């Protein structure tokens, strides 16, 4: 982090009424809503283009119960920025080549007004254009290639932001919509990046589809789309699952795992993705020609554990991933929609506070709105908090695992048969699934073994190597300014990153993290070395290794074309 500028700097700094940091869905919604209240709003985005840094699965939901949805803030969103609506939703329980599939369209449709697949480069850059137009009208605007590197303080109070590219900027409201690994949340002392249990890691491949292949292979019209989820033993013992979503002419195929589980199993994220891509079940959809357009990765916060109840301090409010507002509703992931809602609520809170003559109450008002609009309940369900105490206890999970695996358990599974599908489709149940092996691995595996059919298709996909994947990405390397530094290079402190980093692997020399053996005075030591060039800025090593971690300067680093 840069040294904090003096109070004198703060006094004669440029001023905007509101500064929004980050042009993802949270920032875009906040800025559009602020502009609609006539607030002079400056939006700062570090990417060369909005979306060039962002990764989602991604299905964006418009919830019936939500006070704001993206299409209501941005007219034409679905037609111009989204891919296909998801009209069919399936969950596949996998054990070896046996698969038991459930139709969970009901769960998907619960509280859903609509849901579209999106690719973030297209979506975010479209949003950014609208945002710039809207905010320009009220005296602000949107700038790309500007990285905010910290909070501007005056006598200890947050009064604005500092940037790599610009002089300090003062504001009456600072909206941190800077996503997961929010440097502003960290600077404000609202988030630490300490516990792997609090995060998921998502890894994704965007795969090209020949014309007409999606309609043919998935049995949909050109205005329909499909979502598939995968769980069971295809990821060994790592807790998490896979997804496949249909875009207009491509597929988004990826995995989302609990970071602590990834670390504990020393799993290689790209290999887990490959396990999904090469499973016989996917042969019917991938065909014989596999062309991967982009490999990407990003951390995802687990709102059940980290969503802040009071996401504000002084003039700063946090929205979206920055505030941990990323809900894993069982297998269904909802981050973008909550970021949109939170962004708009923060704007609403500021406008109300201003009308009452005291903008300093905006933060408290925003937190109140998150509660009264029911957002907080979705993010941190009380039932989960209660269930967690028992559910995530290791002994309890061992017990349920053994129960599922026991003869009684197996018999019960068979007896449940068709009703299991309904059980899985229950939003009530899916909200309180504990983070143990049971729901992710043991149960799906058992279901597939007991009820599944073997898949006989042959999958011929040969995914690219990690080296090829890195080679296909676009980078603008900030030579001489690595954005991550190893604070402790010992294997104990930082070794986990070698496998957990999605562009590194044990035994692979071309990634970010490498294991090295150093011989000194006859003794041998294993240490870790880091080269940030291939970094995709996922945030993993900020948490699993001992690093000084920042985002690259504006416009530098990786540039996603799909996202």
């Amino acid at each position, binding site marked *: 982090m840069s040294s904090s500028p003096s109070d004198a700097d703060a006094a004669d700094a*440029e001023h*905007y009424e509101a500064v929004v940091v980050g042009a993802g869905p949270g920032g875009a919604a906040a800025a559009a809503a602020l502009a609609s209240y006539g607030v002079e709003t*400056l939006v*700062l985005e570090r990417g060369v283009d909005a979306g060039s840094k962002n990764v989602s699965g991604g299905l964006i939901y418009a919830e019936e119960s939500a006070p704001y949805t993206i299409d209501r803030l941005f007219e034409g969103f679905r037609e111009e920025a989204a891919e296909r609506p998801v009209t069919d939703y399936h969950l596949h329980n996998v054990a070896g080549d046996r698969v038991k599939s459930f139709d969970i369209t009901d769960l998907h449709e619960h509280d859903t007004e609509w849901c579209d697949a999106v690719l973030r480069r297209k979506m975010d850059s479209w949003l950014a254009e609208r945002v*710039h137009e809207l905010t*320009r009208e009220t005296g*602000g*605007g949107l*700038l790309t290639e*500007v990285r905010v590197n910290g909070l501007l303080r005056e006598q200890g109070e947050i009064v604005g932001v500092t940037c790599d*590219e*610009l*002089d300090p*900027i003062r504001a009456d409201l600072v909206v941190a919509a800077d996503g997961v690994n929010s440097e502003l949340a960290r600077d404000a002392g609202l988030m630490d990046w300490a516990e792997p249990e609090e995060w998921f890691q998502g890894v994704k491949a965007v795969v090209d589809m020949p014309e007409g292949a999606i309609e043919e292979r998935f049995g949909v019209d050109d205005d329909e789309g499909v979502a598939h989820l995968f769980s069971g033993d295809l990821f060994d013992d790592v807790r998490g699952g896979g997804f496949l979503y249909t875009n207009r002419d491509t597929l988004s195929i990826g995995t989302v795992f609990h970071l602590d589980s990834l670390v504990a199993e020393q799993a290689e994220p790209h290999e887990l993705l490959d396990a999904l891509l090469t499973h016989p079940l996917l042969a019917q959809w991938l065909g014989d020609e596999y062309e991967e357009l982009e490999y990407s990765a990003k951390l995802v916060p687990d709102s059940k554990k980290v969503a802040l109840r009071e996401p504000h301090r002084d003039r700063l409010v946090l929205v979206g991933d920055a505030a941990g507002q990323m809900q894993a509703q069982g297998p269904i992931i909802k981050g973008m929609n909550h970021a949109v809602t939170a962004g708009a609520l923060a704007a609403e809170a500021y406008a109300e506070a201003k009308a009452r003559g005291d903008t300093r109450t905006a933060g408290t008002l925003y937190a109140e709105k998150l509660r009264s609009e029911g957002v907080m309940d979705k993010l941190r369900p009380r039932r989960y908090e209660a269930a967690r105490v028992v559910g995530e206890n290791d002994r309890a999970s061992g017990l349920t695992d053994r129960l599922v695996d026991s003869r009684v358990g197996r018999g019960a599974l068979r007896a449940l048969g068709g009703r299991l599908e309904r059980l899985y489709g229950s939003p009530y149940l899916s909200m309180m699934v504990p983070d143990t092996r049971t729901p992710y691995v043991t149960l799906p595996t058992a279901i597939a073994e007991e009820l599944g059919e073997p898949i006989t298709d042959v999958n011929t996909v040969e995914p690219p190597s990690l080296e090829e994947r890195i080679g296909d990405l676009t980078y603008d390397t900030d030579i001489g300014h690595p954005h991550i530094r190893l604070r402790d290079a010992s294997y104990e402190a930082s070794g986990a990153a070698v496998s957990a980093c999605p562009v590194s692997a044990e035994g692979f020399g071309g990634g970010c993290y490498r294991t090295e053996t150093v011989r000194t005075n006859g003794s041998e030591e294993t240490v870790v070395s880091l080269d940030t060039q291939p970094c995709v800025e996922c945030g993993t090593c900020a948490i699993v290794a001992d690093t000084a971690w920042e985002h690259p300067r504006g416009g530098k680093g990786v540039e996603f074309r799909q996202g």
Partner: protein
Amino acid sequence: MAPIHTVVLTKGVPDFREGQVSFDENGHLERGKTPTVMNPNDKFALRAALQTRVRHGGRVSVMSMGPPGYKDVLREAMADVYADDLYLLSDREMAAADTWATSITLATGIEKMAAGTNEGDGRDEDAMPDLVFAGFKTADGETGHTGPQTCWCLDMPVVTHVVSLDIDPEARTLRAKRLVEGDIEEIETVEAELPCFVVADPEFVPSYRTASHRLELKDLRERTARRAEAFEDHLTVWDHSDLNLDPDYIGLDGSPTIVSSVDPIPKQPAEREATVVAPDDADGMTELVDEMLPFAAGASGGGGGAEAVADGGRTGGSDDRDTSDGETGGE
């Protein structure tokens, strides 16, 4: 305070990348046969002008002298630097002019432009532009004289090798960092009064450290995208009679430079000399011109060149502009 008016001088150069530069038997470049692009070094002058425009508002005009094909160069300039208006000084009489003849013509063009366009800007009717920018050397073997020579004709101080620039429109001064190359590269800061002529160094770096400047830049880009498509609506073409210039003093006839041989196409300029000369510093100016002569005149035409230079200077110089107008007015 009147808004700042900035003029950028640019020229086209043969596109060397194509590798099809051709010369006629007299050693003159056959521009018609070689694709034309903007002199790469002019981009730095354009950037300096853009920075001025973004920070202080006002108007940017781009001027070039050359064949009708230079219109493309001007369009490129408009798109790159978001220029407001374009001027092309083009005439068969002006063809094959060397740097002196070019300088006289450009200086006359600038004066005419200034006189004709100030009204709507709330500036004094015949006020000269506040700033004239030129690039460091051209890529086709020219030696960087057009700039200083034009400024001499315009009676403005010149600051060369500028790598960064700040303007105080209230005090009407300019503060520049310039590269002084000796054994080691040195940066010196100089101040000059407006109007001033600025030669931007290839290492010129514009800086936009405030959000409002960057937003202004973005606005300009959007507005100019549309303007550049219809750039001819913003283009004024003048020939020698529009400029009241005597054909004897311009074009090939007015060129003291006789090209005796053509050097290989220069790559990055290797040597740079530092020059800040005020127009009333007679010694300094003489020294500057002396220094440039060997380049301008070529090996065999050195002596004759010097005289022609003196003539040319008088004809186009603004001190005796009335006379010069009178002389050529009868044409």
